[in-house]
């Protein structure tokens, strides 16, 4: 799936928008997350309709100021603190389609965020992890080499 340069910029701005707002302990640092990479991986592995959905989701988020408030602006030109609020409204929009597309982009954002080890740590997902007993030995998988390229 190819993204035009402006679409990649819109995508980054929208996905950053989900984690915009200062002061929270989790806040990603500039450049810490490669949002567009996650979209590319998802797009490449998804069904054609879902790929289209991803693109629509990016457009929807980018044009949300127009769509929700009638303001002729792009999400990327809205102050970072307000981007989250706009996206939050999309997530509970009365239109099923808009809600779903916004949620799809939020899922892509989560996948991008938690590919980063430092952010996994800052989420404390594994805080106070009990020590596991030693791992069982790996069992060799007897394989017959298949197709050689």
């Amino acid at each position, binding site marked *: 799936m190819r993204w035009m340069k402006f679409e990649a910029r819109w995508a980054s701005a929208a996905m950053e*928008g*989900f*984690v*915009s*707002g*200062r*002061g*929270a*302990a*989790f806040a990603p640092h500039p450049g810490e997350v490669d949002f567009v990479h*996650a979209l590319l*991986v*998802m797009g*490449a*592995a*998804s*069904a054609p*309709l*879902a790929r289209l*959905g991803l693109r629509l989701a990016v457009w929807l988020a980018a044009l949300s100021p127009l769509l929700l408030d009638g303001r002729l602006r792009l999400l990327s030109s809205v102050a970072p*603190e307000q*981007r*989250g609020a706009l*996206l*939050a409204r999309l*997530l*509970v929009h009365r239109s*099923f389609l808009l*809600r779903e597309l916004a*949620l799809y982009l*939020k*899922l892509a*954002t*989560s*996948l*991008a*965020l*938690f*590919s980063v080890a430092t952010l*996994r740590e800052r*989420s*404390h*997902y*594994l*805080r*106070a*992890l*009990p020590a*596991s007993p030693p*791992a*069982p030995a*790996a*069992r060799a*998988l*007897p*394989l*017959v080499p*298949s*197709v050689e*390229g």
Partner: protein
Amino acid sequence: MAQLTLEDAADFVIVGTGAGGATAARVLAEAGYSLVLLEEGPLLTREERPAELLDAMALAVRDFGSQTTSGPTPMPLLQGRLVGGSTAINSGIIWRLPEDVREEWTRDHGLGWLVEREALTRIFEQLELELEVAPTSDEVLGNNGHKMRQACEALGLPGKPITRNARRCQGRARCLQGCPLEARQSMDVSYIPRAVAHGARLHPLCRATRVLRARGRAVGVEGEVLDPRTRRRRGRFQVMARRGVIVAAGAIHTPVLLASSGVGGPVGDYFQAHPGCAVVGRFAEPITMGFGATQGYEVPQRERGFKLESLSLPPEMLAARLPGAGHAWQQRLAELDHYAQWATQVRMQAHGRVRRSWLGSPVVQYEPLAADLAKVQTAVALLCRMMFAAGATEVFPGLGGLPEALTTVEQVRLLEQAPLKRQDVHLLASHLFGTARAGANHRTSVVDARLECHDVPGLYVMDASALPTNLGVNPQHTIMATVWRAAEALAERSARPPVA
């Protein structure tokens, strides 16, 4: 790149290496037959299984989880696409075929031989021994499971630790990405290696597109060799079968392959599923879903048409499930260890259809009935009550038209005030059935009690497609047991000289 051509031949060719295909391979290889196993997905060794969901899903889950039903409210249909099939990414929950379903299949579908009680009991016992089946121990139940147990005790519900094929589980909560310790006995670490050790030849990245026939009989399979990176076609293969072709591509892709091969009858009809959804709760104390069996505790409610299970999510999925965006969402993300999640799987009455599109891909038409949605509503309300009973401070029912977070148990009543609308619930299904179902009647079934096609001698369907109805319990064990029974009989029958 040069075109690649693969040619091979064996007694049996098996398409698909999931619960059904791998079990057929286990039985036939050890009975001394030569086998070729064709699998569309890649082979992932323990070292190659990524910890991050983004890469794990791209490698192992069909279409990154975006295979859905068609229609205005698409429902994701999750399936594995790798050696081991869906078992490589499932939770290893083991349930025997319920007696009422066994009786129904005997009475209404003429499957008395396939599900004969004594034979099935013997096979279940053998499977349970070989696949290290045991109840989840307290040590690896994890807080997500312990909290569910606490809720059951408070509300008097019949909860119990889940029986799984993972006796050596260390509670790494990563079953859905493929167990990093190979503790869970999915087919890629159990029956496929076992069949290969008995001489079976495994060809990953080979997608079957057509079953070949000669004088009406199935004699081989042809298809495409796929590039491991792009998954595009990089060559072709043709594998001849001296004694039979076994299709085990799962309940969505088996009917597509049969239809592409000109098999008649109700191929793709009678699709059924156990769709489900989940409820998240926030607790004041840490839960740490990252430790514990991915699914360790359950509340069977078959008589009410659903089942409740603890389901530990990786952080990526949990994060997406929490409400809001911006600052509020970030604050939740900074304390992901405080959340628990429990899910429901509903035995729906609805039937759907799987058809082959003109592009060759599946189209799944399926809509839950009003009665099915009523069960979802009851199950979600119960899950919410259980969360509060276990001490949750906030509960996220995940239903549209309701507050995103409930803070008191009284608010659960809001859920029950009006019938649930389809577009207000995010359903997804991973238990899929019935698209090439077995039965005695040629008009209403595709294969007979021995899982051989009514229409095409030498062609067998040995996977979830052959189960005539859904079950109300997790299906892997029943798929494996019915396939084992049919494969055993096939091995016996085939001991006669091969077909000329």
